[in-house]
């Protein structure tokens, strides 16, 4: 029997709270230590050591950074628009964190006769929810850019809103091809559709959508990177030209929130890509769904960091050219071809 609000309200609320706190803490921990991993990995790629002094191999560095940012003076520029200036860091962090709510992290477990799905909530519009939250993420950056009342911030804000709106479109269209195959919008349903042997015949490979939709997978990862403003698409905060872009005027914990949002967004994009294309929690360790998912997320995070150490930033006109004239037509063509193939296979 599925645990629900009607048959055991108390246990339902407790299980929900436990799941929410657990997911939140895990994401926060990944966010904190992603900063450390990033500095270490990029350091070693450039034959440096990265942080070494705080704890063993700098392992306490994120905590030290957090404490330092906590005790810094919180400056609000005198000419800034106060309300949007305060709202912006929250509006960028909240959508990033609540997107995790629809990511399934394991098969159903049974405790005391009740079945508990290992997912905070299984919306039957899961993917649309993710896209909607990604759309809300723009506000934080736009508001931060505008409210700071500084030309660098404003330029960063305008750049990023244009970038995010364009790449959101291409990312959304690549996902369309996935749910044409799965025939469901629920994340749980998509993970279930990817179980079994590849194409139903090759037993040693999993039936993941990356093998059906390699183009969509590549496009999704690239567009996802562009949407969360990671290198090589970090134009909104291009240091060489815009100081620090939209977060130039922020200090103390507000700056830390922007920083956290960037890494939380990386976790979210990694989790979505893993769930949609790499089988989600289904993987090499049967029975340990969360470990499988975390492994995939870590692999993606490493890949993102690797990209940052490798690629220079793209130029702004190149970025717009790629978004509208390369990725969007490719994603559209992918949808059309997938549609034709699905109809042919079904008939």
């Amino acid at each position: 029997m599925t645990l629900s609000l009607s048959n055991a309200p108390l246990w339902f609320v407790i299980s929900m709270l436990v799941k929410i706190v657990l997911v939140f803490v895990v994401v926060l921990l990944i966010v904190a230590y992603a900063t450390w991993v990033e500095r270490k990995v990029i350091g070693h790629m450039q034959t440096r050591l990265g942080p070494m002094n705080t704890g063993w191999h700098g392992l306490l560095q994120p905590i030290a950074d957090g404490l330092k940012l906590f005790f810094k003076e919180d400056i609000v520029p005198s000419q800034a628009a106060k309300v949007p200036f305060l709202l912006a860091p929250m509006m960028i962090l909240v959508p990033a964190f609540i997107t995790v709510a629809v990511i399934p992290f394991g098969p159903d477990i049974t405790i005391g006769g009740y079945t508990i799905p290992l997912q905070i909530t299984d919306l039957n519009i899961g993917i649309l929810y993710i896209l909607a939250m990604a759309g809300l993420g723009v506000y934080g950056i736009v508001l931060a850019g505008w409210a700071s009342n500084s030309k660098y911030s404003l330029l960063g804000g305008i750049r990023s809103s244009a970038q995010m709106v364009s790449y959101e479109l291409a990312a959304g269209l690549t996902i369309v091809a996935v749910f044409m195959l799965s025939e469901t919008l629920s994340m749980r349903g998509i993970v279930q559709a990817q179980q079994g042997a590849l194409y139903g015949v090759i037993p040693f490979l999993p039936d993941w959508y990356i093998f059906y939709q390699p183009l969509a997978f590549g496009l999704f990862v690239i567009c996802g990177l562009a949407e969360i403003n990671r290198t090589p698409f970090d134009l909104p905060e291009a240091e060489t030209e815009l100081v620090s872009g939209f977060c130039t005027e922020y200090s103390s914990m507000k700056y830390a929130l922007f920083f956290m949002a960037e890494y939380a967004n990386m976790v979210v994009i990694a989790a979505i890509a893993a769930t949609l294309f790499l089988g989600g929690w289904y993987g090499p360790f049967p029975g340990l769904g969360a470990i499988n998912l975390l492994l995939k997320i870590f692999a993606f995070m490493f890949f993102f960091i690797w990209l940052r150490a490798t690629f220079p930033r793209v130029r702004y006109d190149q970025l717009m050219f790629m978004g509208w004239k390369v990725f969007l037509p490719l994603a559209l063509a992918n949808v059309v071809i997938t549609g034709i193939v699905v109809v042919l296979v079904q008939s």
Partner: protein
Amino acid sequence: MEKLFFYLVALVAVGSGFLVVKCRNPVNSALALVNTFFCLAIFYVMLHAPFMAAIQVLVYAGAIMVLILFVIMLLNLGSEAHKRFTHSLIGGSIMGVLMLFLVFFFVNRGEPTGMRGNITDGLVDKIGHTELMGRTLFTEFLLPFEITSILLLVAIVGAVILAKKEV
């Protein structure tokens, strides 16, 4: 419980709707409007229409309002923001009262016309709101759907022609 939640969200929706017209700063107005859209999305969820809720947030809050904010930011309406406007107060209040009358009339006496399927909450939960919408849109209402898409195409072509220096 559900009723309480409804009134809470309704309060927020009406409050932010009021702020949309009351805020001096156009950016704050736009933000209040986003909040109103979000509350509308919550109402859609409560009416067992999750697809509409997601589209509401995706299209209105995520795309259209971002463009509006973009325009406000580019125009930088700072000087306009400090003026007081009173000339449309009387016309606005008359229109408001008329709208209120219309809404109450529709809620109490009104009857939706047009086609009505036998759709219940149970059916929506079983098949899924998206599936139901999709099936009806692509079979029964295919012609209006296609006409809408042509309308949008015309709008896009028009925008491109307006924006281009030489066609």
